[in-house]
């Protein structure tokens, strides 16, 4: 039976770069040849969630949300707009980071839809954060003597938003690779503004857990951390703030290894993509993981 991968992401009416990581990861997966079709769909761009399933010809479709946390989009908007019959968030049996997949049908097409949890809460995402730290420092062994800050948006409306950040911070901390690991936030305590205060290390890598670069990762966070007074003038990597060298990585979602997490989600839902995962890892530098 032919199988399609549909990557669903937010997209933007205003920012043409919002969809770039989605297209890049889709291209990596296409090149790996695991699926008969790979298609991108967006909440704010086209094809819309509402119409994407009719654009693929395969009978079996794996839908992977390129979102960071479980919540409004993964639990309400995406299943509703895809018209997933019988969707019930309880079937994910998740406490905020455990959603794996559920198999349903969609009301407007005759296809089997495997609806997966978001990439942001998959265990493999911890590897991408570490890979991002390697990319920004240019050091494949980065860790010793370095602090790592995993930064989330944070919002009081969705407690799961912070859970994903804490989850990966804890996993990386347990691995013992970095001297210190902290979870920081834009809109709640502990705040990224005072990043240097949370670390004793002289070097800190800051990785925002965002899908795409945009207003938050390119303007807000660099200015809040004091890397620059005006984002338009740019900032150094590393930049020294209060005596600490801050290695600011930008959105983790732009890291090539994200393609691996998308494949892992589909594999967990039963897609036959193991060979492709090996190829994608080899190509995107992701030697870590099990």
């Amino acid at each position: 039976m032919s199988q399609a991968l549909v990557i669903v992401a937010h997209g933007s009416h205003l920012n043409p770069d919002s969809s770039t990581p989605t297209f890049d990861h889709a291209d990596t997966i296409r090149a790996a040849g695991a699926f008969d079709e790979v298609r991108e769909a967006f909440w704010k761009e086209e094809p819309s969630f509402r119409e994407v399933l009719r654009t693929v010809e395969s009978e079996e479709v794996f839908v992977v949300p390129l979102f960071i946390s479980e919540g409004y989009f993964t639990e309400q908007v995406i299943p509703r707009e895809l018209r997933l019959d019988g969707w019930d968030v309880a079937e994910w049996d998740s406490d905020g980071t455990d959603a794996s997949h559920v198999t349903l049908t969609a009301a407007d097409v005759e296809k089997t839809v495997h609806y997966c949890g978001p990439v942001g809460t998959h265990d493999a995402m911890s590897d991408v954060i570490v890979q991002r730290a390697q990319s920004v420092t240019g050091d494949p062994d980065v860790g010793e003597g370095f602090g790592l800050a995993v930064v989330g948006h944070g919002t009081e409306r969705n407690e799961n938003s912070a859970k994903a950040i804490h989850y990966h911070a804890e996993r990386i901390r347990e691995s013992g690779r970095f001297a210190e690991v902290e979870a920081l936030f834009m809109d709640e305590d502990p705040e990224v503004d005072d990043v240097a205060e949370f670390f004793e290390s002289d070097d800190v890598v800051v990785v925002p857990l965002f899908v795409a670069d945009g207003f938050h990762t390119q303007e807000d966070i660099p200015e809040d951390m004091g890397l620059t007074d005006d984002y338009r003038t740019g900032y150094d990597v590393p930049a020294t703030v209060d005596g600490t060298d801050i290695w600011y990585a930008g959105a983790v979602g732009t890291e090539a290894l994200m393609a691996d997490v998308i494949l892992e989600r589909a594999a967990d839902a039963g897609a036959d993509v193991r060979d492709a995962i090996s190829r994608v890892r080899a190509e995107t530098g992701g030697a870590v993981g099990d």
Partner: protein
Amino acid sequence: MDASLFGRFRTATDYVRDWSTWRDLPETRRAFLRWVEGADDLDIEERYAALRGDGIRRRWGQLLLTVSLERGHRSYDLRHEDDADRSTDELTTHDDPLDARHLATEDDDGRYRPLKTAPTLRTGWVFPDLSGEEVVEAIDYFYPATVANWHREREGALDVTHWRETAERQTGIYDVVDELSGEQVEWLAQSCCVDSQCLKRRMWDEEEGAELDVPRGEGAFPCREPCSLVVAAARKWTTLEREEAREYTFTLTPSEKEQVEDLVDAVADGRVGEIREADVYEGANRYRARYLRAKRFDDEGNLSGVPTDDEEAD
């Protein structure tokens, strides 16, 4: 072989070729590619003569497809309709259908196109030799889901979702859009959904049996539901429409009143960029607008010195 015998042989070969071309294709793609070359309208000899000659052309939004037979196989040339008469050498050539994504992102002025079916597709490129599968893939990146919805419509199975149902389904920050009245939905469609703004043919109305007066458009492919841009615009209109109208008294000359109307028209019709620098006869000319502002706005930017809110007058 005499000419008539050769002709009969070729026709027989064409029947076989035609059959083998279409037999294994998925239904939607087959229907579309057959429509491109008029397979339901032209007889096979006529059609193959055209395919061997200059090819058969079809327009799809602003796209121009030309299918021809090259070395016995169908070859599809895909380009902007405005580039119809330009030679391939004058255009940037592409062979990967995925390039369509990038070609569709910005218009000729480098501005982002959030709506793929806006009539602002950039020019200057060509896919000179795509297969049938590739041309459908490219089209689906230029105009996502249009082939699928066109096919559903032809089969009498287009699932139209009207405004009320779409509005009532919304949650979060879009939950409010169901407040718009029927008249306001007319204005919404008039602002966003006419041919000058979008090439889809609007098939949705306020609700089943409550048709909007706004023209549906002439497009080849249908619009089966208000899109995300329309819903996002509706959210803004909804909050603006919550305001009560009030009376203001402005002092303007007759020409200044008409200038204000010209300004709104020029912005609404996207003509601002076309108005020449020194054409002060145009109401929306920049110098004319600057003169009006210098004369009629106070230091706070209030038209005729009239404050927007009463409190400002205190």
